[in-house]
């Protein structure tokens, strides 16, 4: 089964400008070479502390930020060039596909063997390049770029987000009908006013809000209800992936459990796929099927939920788990207290980025950057000391 979303070597750096000429003096390395897949119907939990890059990943995935480099594949389409200005998009496609295909052809001599050596998007694009475009770069580019507006629209429909703050994420001047109905109308999922209202009512009822409230304004609702409206807005477009960025962090305990349960129920009913971004490991444990732990722009560990919580391997994951207070006074657990603060992503530590706070670090850790290795099937860890 192919993943719904595949992120390959995603990098996002933000420039820091200073001086009269606003010259770039440094880069914030928010996300630095991150790859992962999201499969249909699953919940991937992305967890880490502030500044680890988890929100940047969500924003880049939605293309609210353009990635610095890397590739974002959604439903077997490379979407990386979708929102680039035309010249940049052409340069991207040439660099990543046509030039590469030509090089491969030189090595392998025959078109068939080039196509066979590739898979997924690469293979499909190679077929377009060699078969449909007959090896012409111009034709290849025009095939991919001709219907770019439609592609953009589809992309916007397929990926939706639920934000953290239910107070600032709903426009206070719009009625609920407009907030939730805008998407389906724009994307022509409904015909006419009557159908639009029906659609809005039905998604609102899905999230537990009466359809009678569609002419109300956001301020007439409580925080928990607003978050439900935010979920309804995402749901209204039947997206392939919903990114929930700290979607329950601002809610009170009793309201939080309602919203978490709701999101789980909706997932079962509508076969939704979530990327659940949170700093809270307990919430992540409850909602996720697979968990990715990040530290300072890097993935340090990823595994299925069961494996990660039963057998955490990276020292950071272990420290993070042990730092969470357990609501049970009968348990006295050994706590790993990390030294110091999270370093700045402008100037991350050399070697393993965690070595300055790590309780296990050896000399090698400050020099060599560990790669993400598969320790057991599906369990990836980036640490020199694991498995030795």
């Amino acid at each position, binding site marked *: 089964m192919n993943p719904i979303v595949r992120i390959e070597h995603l990098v996002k750096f933000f420039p820091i400008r200073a001086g009269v000429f606003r010259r770039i003096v440094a880069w914030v390395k928010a996300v630095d070479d991150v790859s992962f897949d999201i499969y249909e119907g699953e919940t991937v939990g992305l967890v880490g502390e502030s500044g680890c890059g988890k929100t940047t990943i969500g924003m880049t995935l939605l293309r609210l930020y353009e990635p610095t480099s890397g590739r974002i594949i959604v439903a077997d389409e490379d979407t990386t060039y979708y929102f680039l200005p035309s010249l940049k998009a052409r340069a991207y496609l040439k660099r990543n596909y046509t030039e590469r295909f030509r090089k491969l052809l030189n090595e392998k001599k025959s078109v068939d063997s080039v196509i066979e050596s590739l898979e997924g998007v690469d293979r499909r694009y190679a077929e377009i390049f060699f078969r449909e475009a007959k090896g012409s770069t111009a034709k290849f580019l025009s095939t991919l770029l001709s219907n770019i507006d439609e592609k953009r629209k589809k992309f916007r429909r397929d990926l939706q987000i639920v934000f953290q703050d239910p107070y600032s994420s709903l426009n206070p001047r719009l009625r609920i009908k407009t907030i939730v109905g805008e998407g389906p109308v724009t994307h022509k999922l409904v015909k006419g006013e009557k159908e639009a209202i029906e659609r809005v009512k039905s998604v609102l009822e899905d999230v537990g809000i009466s359809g009678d409230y569609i002419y109300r304004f956001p301020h007439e609702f409580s925080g*928990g209800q607003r978050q439900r409206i935010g979920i309804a807005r995402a749901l209204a477009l039947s997206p392939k992936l919903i990114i929930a960025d700290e979607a329950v962090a601002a809610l*009170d305990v009793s309201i939080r459990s*309602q919203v*978490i349960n709701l999101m789980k129920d909706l997932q079962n009913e509508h076969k939704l796929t979530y990327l659940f971004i949170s700093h809270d490991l307990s919430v992540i*444990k409850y909602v996720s099927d697979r968990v990715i732990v990040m530290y300072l722009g890097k993935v340090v560990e990823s595994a299925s939920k069961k494996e990660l919580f039963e057998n955490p391997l990276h020292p950071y994951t272990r420290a993070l788990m042990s730092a969470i*207070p357990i*609501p049970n006074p009968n348990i006295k657990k050994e*706590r790993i*207290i990390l030294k110091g603060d999270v370093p700045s992503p402008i100037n991350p530590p050399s070697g393993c980025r965690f070595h300055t706070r790590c309780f296990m670090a050896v000399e090698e850790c400050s020099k060599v950057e560990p790669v993400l290795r598969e320790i057991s099937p599906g369990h990836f860890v980036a640490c020199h000391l694991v498995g030795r």
Partner: protein
Amino acid sequence: MRSDTVEKSVLSVKNLKTYFYTEDGIVKAVDGVDFDVFEGETLGIVGESGCGKSVTSLSILRILDEKGKIVEGSILFGGIDLTKISEEAMRKIRGKDIAMIFQEPMVALNPVFTIGEQIVEAIVLHQKVDETTARKIAVDLLRKVGIPEPEKRVDEYPHELSGGMRQRAMIAMALSCKPKILIADEPTTALDVTIQAQIMELMKQLQKEYGMAIILITHDMGVIAENADRVVVMYAGKAVEYTDVKTLFNDPKHPYTWGLLHAIPRLDIEQTRLYNIPGIVPNPLKFPSGCKFHPRCEFAQEKCRIEEPDLEEVAERHFVRCFYWEKVEEAKSKEVGDRR
């Protein structure tokens, strides 16, 4: 901690009621809270937003804004009722005997003075020392709370410190006069979990060293379980359950406490589904009649809508504000299997 000391109450809050007289009506932010804080012990106050937990602490220090008034009840500290004494007398206690740390150190610290200046101010105000000595004390305090290079940091401004370091500086300031009671209002809510662990560890260690009592206000049941000796659960301005921490978690009797404990996702157990407390946290301008929790309570009866229950001692030192706490008992016994 409790077992080896003779229990001595340092602060005793009785039937405290603090109302805010706003243009929209009277907000009964605190409407009947009772608890004792014992020497060297940590009292936890837990509840959701708007339950009155913060206003309780502001009332103890009498730092309410002009709309807020303590309308009833007493706060006994060393034989004096803090609600009755003059503002001048209160000023001698505030910061000296009872100190407070806040949730957002960036807001609570003054951005235009260095950390050192702010600590020195408190020391000079309450102790008979000159500024040079006070500065030395400040540096020692910063070292004690784990700030690296305190001689240098003492001259830095709050914005030059990280969130965790700022909270440490706040603690240093609060400890400068060796208070008998430290009120910590959501001290770690704005911090990352690894930093939270550092700060809670520091507070425990300092509590032992100074022998002070702590009032820990939080919404996080985990923080309560690991740090409090006794707990007050608040809902809609009222204490609904008050007992020691083990009893509260092992044997909660109020339906709200029970619901809260089941509504949180946990690392230590497998959960198939979180408990839903239906409805929303009530608006303090329009609290429901009778028991404030009845519209959200699955055990509520007709009586709960009309009459307000008292905080009743249902077992030794276990106080519950509920007519039907025995029913919670039954429900609990039914799903023990699910929990363990």
